[in-house]
């Protein structure tokens, strides 16, 4: 079933799919040819992308692109749906600790305008509600809630606010004003513990002020109560601990996957599929078990490629660290077209890739992890982790992808760029990527090519 790694188009996937089937591919229930998402789901962007040709990546894409169906099926089966907004990887862990709750991530509507090439009309709905393009593409979520065309109305809607972006906080408030009840919970701006102040030690050595951990813990306890009411059962500490272990199964898998991808001589997984894989850590694509299995299959594939010395692109490709997710997925392909490969990422949720401590009381552990979110702390701290990872993964350049309209990007980009430049003396490019970047393709290409040229020329110095 395995073929040499190659990036193939949607059309080429038709033949590849037949080939895989002929050689005995067994797929999960959500399996099938990629083309159906384009034809039936109107995921028009797929025709412009190039995909990894492995069966494992096919499964990953199918898991991602069937989430809407899965949510409707959950509703049909009587499972309760929890929309976890602006929470990158904490509340879903708790939700999946209940046997009859399914968490999903309404913020994921961020990518719908890209994937459907605006045919969804979601941004127009946001415009009509006064949330125009001065807000981040997550504004598509408003339309998704109102039309219910992409996910059913959840039974419980939870949103973190406090040290979060203004975009999301305002969009969620707009949603609330339109009659969607929201359970708001506070995440304070992370700061170091002050001298003499009680602190809480996280694995990795970061100390958090106990007062902040206490606040988040009480907020999570409130969410827990709401979920217990919804689920009709109490969440025993052992259940939450088991939920954390299940989340860690996914995180462990991603940790190895990322390490192998970033450290291999030749990249064993394209940038696009890596981005999709990382996304699984936040919300498990509405099926935690399937997310874990899909990632494990992908890891097996990556290990096999590394062991057999197979991969994508050239082993001399420029090693890039990428900051912030791209609103247009196609740009991940473009990066590789320009002679680069992904050797590190900070898609704003690196804390959701770290293992949740299993030796702490579960609610304390979750509260601590929520506070480790790079976006609730300072950009300088975020930049510090980026520098460490760039060194560990031998990155040669940094791309900061600015998100159109995002309240954090204009301020943090410069801080991150300056720190990376000062500490590592590596080239940095900051570029803005709109949801469909076709019109900017040539300028994006020339900026990325210039970065690659700079990296290559610095190698010979």
């Amino acid at each position, binding site marked *: 079933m395995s073929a040499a790694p190659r990036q193939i188009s949607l059309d080429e996937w038709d033949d590849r799919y037949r080939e895989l089937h002929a050689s005995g591919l067994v797929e999960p229930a959500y399996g099938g040819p990629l083309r159906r998402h384009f034809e039936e789901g109107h995921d028009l962007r797929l025709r412009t992308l190039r995909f990894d040709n492995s069966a494992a990546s096919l499964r990953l894409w199918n898991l991602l692109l069937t989430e809407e169906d899965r949510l409707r099926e959950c509703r049909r089966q009587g499972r309760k749906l929890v929309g976890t907004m602006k929470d990158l990887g904490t509340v879903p862990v708790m939700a999946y600790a209940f046997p009859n709750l399914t968490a999903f991530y309404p913020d994921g509507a961020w990518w719908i305008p890209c994937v459907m090439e605006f045919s969804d009309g979601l941004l127009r709905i946001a415009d009509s509600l006064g949330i125009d393009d001065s807000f981040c593409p997550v504004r598509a979520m408003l339309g998704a809630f109102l039309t219910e065309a992409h996910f059913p109305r959840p039974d419980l809607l939870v949103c973190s606010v*406090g040290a979060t972006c203004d975009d999301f906080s305002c969009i969620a408030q707009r949603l609330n004003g339109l009659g969607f009840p929201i359970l708001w919970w506070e995440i*304070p*701006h992370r700061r170091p513990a002050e001298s003499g102040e009680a602190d809480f030690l996280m694995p990795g050595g970061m100390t958090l002020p106990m007062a902040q951990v206490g606040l988040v813990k009480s907020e999570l306890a409130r969410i827990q109560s709401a979920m217990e009411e919804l689920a009709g059962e109490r969440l025993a500490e052992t259940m939450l601990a088991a939920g954390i272990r299940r989340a860690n199964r996914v995180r462990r898998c991603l940790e190895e996957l990322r390490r192998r991808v970033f450290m291999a001589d030749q990249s064993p997984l394209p940038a696009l599929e890596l981005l999709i894989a990382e996304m699984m850590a936040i919300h498990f694509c509405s099926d935690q078990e399937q997310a874990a299995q899909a990632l494990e299959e992908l890891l097996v594939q990556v290990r096999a490629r590394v062991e057999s010395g197979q991969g994508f692109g050239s082993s001399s490709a420029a090693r890039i660290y990428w900051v912030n997710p791209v609103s247009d997925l196609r740009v991940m392909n473009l990066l590789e077209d320009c002679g680069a490969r992904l050797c590190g990422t900070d898609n704003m949720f690196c804390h959701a890739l770290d293992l949740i401590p299993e030796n702490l009381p579960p609610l304390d552990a979750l509260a601590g992890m929520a506070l480790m979110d790079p976006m609730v702390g300072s950009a300088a701290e975020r930049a510090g982790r980026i520098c460490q990872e760039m060194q560990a993964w031998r990155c040669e350049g940094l791309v900061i992808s*600015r998100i159109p309209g*995002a*309240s954090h990007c204009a301020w943090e980009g410069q801080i991150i760029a300056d720190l990376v430049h000062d500490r590592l003396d590596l080239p940095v490019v900051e570029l803005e990527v709109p949801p469909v970047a076709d019109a900017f393709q040539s300028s994006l290409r020339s900026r990325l090519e210039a970065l690659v040229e700079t990296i290559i020329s610095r190698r010979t110095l």
Partner: protein
Amino acid sequence: MKTVIYECPFIPAEWIAAHGLRPSRVQPPAAGAILSLGSEDGTCPYARACLAAFFHYPGDAIVYTTTCDQMRRGCEVTIAQTAKPVFVLHVPKTWEQPEASAFYREELLRLSRFLVSLGGHAPSNSKLSEVLLAFDGARRQLVELRSVATARQFSEFIARFNQAGDPGCMVDIRKVFDAAPPAALARKKIPVALFGSPLMSHHYFLFDSLEKLGGRIVLDGTTTGELGLPGLMDRQAIREDPLQCLVNAYFGTIPDAFRRPNDQLYTWFREKGLERGVRGILFRHYVWCDTWHSEAQRLKEWSSWPVVSLETGEETQLTGHTLARLQSLVEMLQ
């Protein structure tokens, strides 16, 4: 005496004053090209203006809050570029649970430790009560001026009061008013509410421009105006638990747009609007200010009063665009 500067209405001046330091709430002029404060594209002009003012304004320490992401992140630029001590106070956006106001109270205590590190003294309850009573008394005098001063005067007096950080400033404010009392309040003009993003120090021309066109601002619903005033305090409560009184007056009453949920903002606005006989709303927000911009359409859907919204940048005088918006508001109401 050391001066502690800040911009946010959720920093209680009384708390700083009770530590023996001078509080001064900055109302910034436009940043213009004074400083390189990161990219203009994507940054709120008011946040940029605050950063610039913090660099230039005479002050010994700066207090930031986290009420909006732009300021939270702008704070990092300040920290990187100034030698002055900077303190960041987290004001919870949620407020419905007692834990939120308890956290705010804890943050005030943390601020106290910072103020002590600057040379201040943590106040006893009786000292704090004394300061609270003085500020509250002065604020009552300030609020009384509203019915006799012009709208512009009243809003400027609020800014002056905030900047002075001293209840004694009411003597000067009174003098200024007595020296130039309004000949007659423009009662015949159409009563309008100003609502939205805070004003920079040179933005009061809006009041005059509107008056020239036949309108009159009767409610300054910005955080640099009435919206940012803490609630008046109960004297008995001040004596019983002055710190909690402070928490209640600030965290418990200022209905800013960033709060979640922020329905209290609309309740406040409706009450004041009805009380003042408002007939229309001038809604104003800065470009890239999500916090207020996102309320524009909601306000239109909610309001039975006509609303004209105005997006502004750093302009220091009346622009053609602003004039056209003011004209359309007045014409709509005539």
